[in-house]
């Protein structure tokens, strides 16, 4: 058991760190959302130009041919330096790897290079107003008309949709079949979607609602077999969960560091109650780091991570929510009047953190997964 990088991992980390330091010299996040998106587009192009896009992609598809651990190390170093989010994070991390598994040779040739370069930005058309935790209950309809599918429905919580050209879209193609067996996955153009940004609780608009009316998708753009879209969706969700562990940890560590700074600044470093709460939160953040290393170690050895991976998402959401709430309630964040207005980092972060226990599988879904898969309890649904 060794929690440190192997010499090879350490060398890769040093190489990544040196490149990031150089690439991010003088970089500062823009204050308005539009400009931040432009930075994300530029960052994707920069990653691609210098060969850091698709670290875990096979070389045959233009990647570096390294493993998930290297990808995670790079992301960890990038988040530490507050790098922008590359615009095509969904394309590179989710859609590309899924096309590699389920796509035709034509699709691989057509899509993979443009994903890495950021020429084509992807979004993920999964959730619907009526299908959140119960994703397989989705109702967006696709009907076969000759060589085309005619699609009608609504999708929601679609990150980057307003910037995307392409969408990995789950549709209902056989309403009579059991719900997991009547879904088909299409690679659709977003051109004819009506896209409405959703203003979030903190004023940002990361997510969109997409209305799809009589949109035609050629059958050649189908990913996987007809009515076999659920295994494709499962592949996407597996990729969504595998690489995130180390990045989540860094996000939590940054919020914790900020709390430590705020307590020091307030002159309350001797407050025993604050010390006790800080100690507990710091241990939870540290648990994310060491669990993340255990998960990445298992992935690197081609083993299935153990129960620690199901714990990480739950604890990550909780600890960031607890830290940001504590800062506000202890008056470390400035006045409570800040709540709901822009300008206060803590209120913004607190409000955004409410989403952590909902996005990427709600706390309730995570707990049901633990109950069924780890504890062997009977299914509740």
């Amino acid at each position: 058991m060794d929690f440190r990088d192997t010499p090879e991992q350490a060398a890769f980390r040093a190489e990544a760190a040196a490149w990031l330091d150089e690439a991010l010299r003088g970089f500062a996040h823009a204050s308005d959302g539009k400009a931040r998106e432009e930075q994300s587009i530029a960052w994707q192009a920069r990653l691609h130009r210098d060969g850091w896009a698709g670290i875990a992609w096979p070389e045959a598809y233009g990647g570096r041919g390294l493993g998930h651990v290297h990808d995670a190390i790079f992301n960890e170093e990038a988040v530490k330096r507050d790098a922008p989010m590359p615009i095509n994070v969904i394309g590179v991390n989710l859609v590309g790897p899924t096309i590699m598994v389920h796509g035709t040779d034509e699709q691989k040739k057509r899509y993979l290079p443009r994903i890495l370069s950021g020429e084509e930005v992807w979004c993920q058309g999964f959730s619907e107003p009526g299908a959140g935790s119960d994703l397989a209950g989705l109702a967006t309809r696709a009907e076969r008309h000759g060589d085309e599918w005619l699609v009608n429905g609504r999708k929601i919580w679609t990150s980057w949709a307003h910037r995307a050209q392409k969408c990995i879209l789950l549709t209902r193609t056989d309403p009579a079949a059991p719900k997991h067996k009547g879904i088909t996955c299409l690679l659709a153009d977003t051109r004819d979607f009506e896209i409405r940004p959703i203003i979030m609780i903190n004023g940002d608009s990361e997510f969109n609602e997409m209305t799809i009316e009589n949109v035609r998708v050629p059958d050649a753009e189908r990913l996987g077999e007809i009515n076999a879209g659920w295994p494709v969706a499962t592949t996407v969700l597996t990729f969504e969960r595998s690489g995130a562990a180390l990045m989540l940890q860094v996000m939590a560590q940054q919020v914790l560091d900020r709390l430590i700074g705020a307590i020091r600044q307030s002159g309350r470093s001797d407050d025993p109650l604050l010390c006790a709460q800080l100690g507990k939160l710091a241990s939870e953040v540290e648990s994310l780091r060491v669990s993340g290393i255990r998960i990445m170690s298992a992935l690197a050895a081609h083993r299935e991570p153990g129960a620690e991976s199901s714990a990480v998402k739950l604890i990550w959401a909780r600890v960031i929510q607890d830290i940001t709430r504590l800062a506000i309630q202890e008056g470390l964040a400035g006045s409570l009047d800040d709540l709901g207005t822009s300008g206060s980092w803590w209120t913004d972060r607190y409000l955004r953190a409410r989403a952590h226990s909902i996005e990427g599988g709600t706390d309730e879904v995570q707990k049901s997964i633990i109950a069924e898969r780890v504890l062997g309890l009977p299914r509740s649904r």
Partner: protein
Amino acid sequence: MQALFTSDQEMIADTASRMAKGGLARARALLNGASPEGSPDGQLIEGWSALGVPEAQGGSAGMVEAALLVQALGEAGEPGGFLTHFQSVHALAGAGLADRLLGSGARATLVDEHGVGAARKSALVVERTGTRWRLREAAGWEAVRSVDPARLAGRVTPGSVIAEGEDRGHGLERVQVLLAAEACGVGRGAIRIAAAYATTREQFGKPIGVYQAISHRLAHATADLEAAWSLTLHAAWALEGAPELAVKAARMAKAAAGTAAIYACEACVQTHGGMGITREADPHLYLKRAFAIDAAWGRAAALNREIGSALLSS
């Protein structure tokens, strides 16, 4: 990053689980004043006392192995005197004196500042004064009632000192890591019996584990225990692989494991409903053990303050 168990380590965990089988039944026997049957104490003390002790002091393997062993005993609810003996060995290892105890062939009990420990018959005791560990004879024992009635506790009348030395080798942290590992095991054992009960106990025509009010509490406990177990393994590794991290890592592990174990055991009591608050069912055995572990060598409440305070002053 190679934070994985070797096959030898997995074997130790399996062997320990097999040896500790029937631990809860033995705990119940002790509680009822009977003598427990099939205790693995002799076998454990004979064969496993030196596990994780530095080789120079007569030990073998490492702290991860030691943590796996203790975790398995905790999960089984094993009540015997091995754990306090094992802690004594590791405390002395910090002072470079583990071989003195291992070589004596005698059993020891680790006693607190009041001379109280989790056994009442051993020939030797280990105590801490300031930052020194001391191995001495036990002149006599007086029975003490413990929060954990299934583990005999006693107050020692100290006898002559055999050896003592400064804790320069993280003896306290070794003890904390062993306790953290035991707490993780106790919590896991509690969740295991709670899940088994929730699968068989029916109300409103269904096993109660179907209801998320039940299953989600157990899942929450499981997540906290997993976090504590990761911290414990990290601290066990740090004691040998990165000693500069050991103090903070051990504190975090002990605090997180104590808290997670108590929550898991409370969840176990609640899951058992009315039976959970009786002495006829097993949840109370785990619950009381969890509190006893938390109270020993650094309570979560105090450790959390220490951790927070250190972060603010560094």
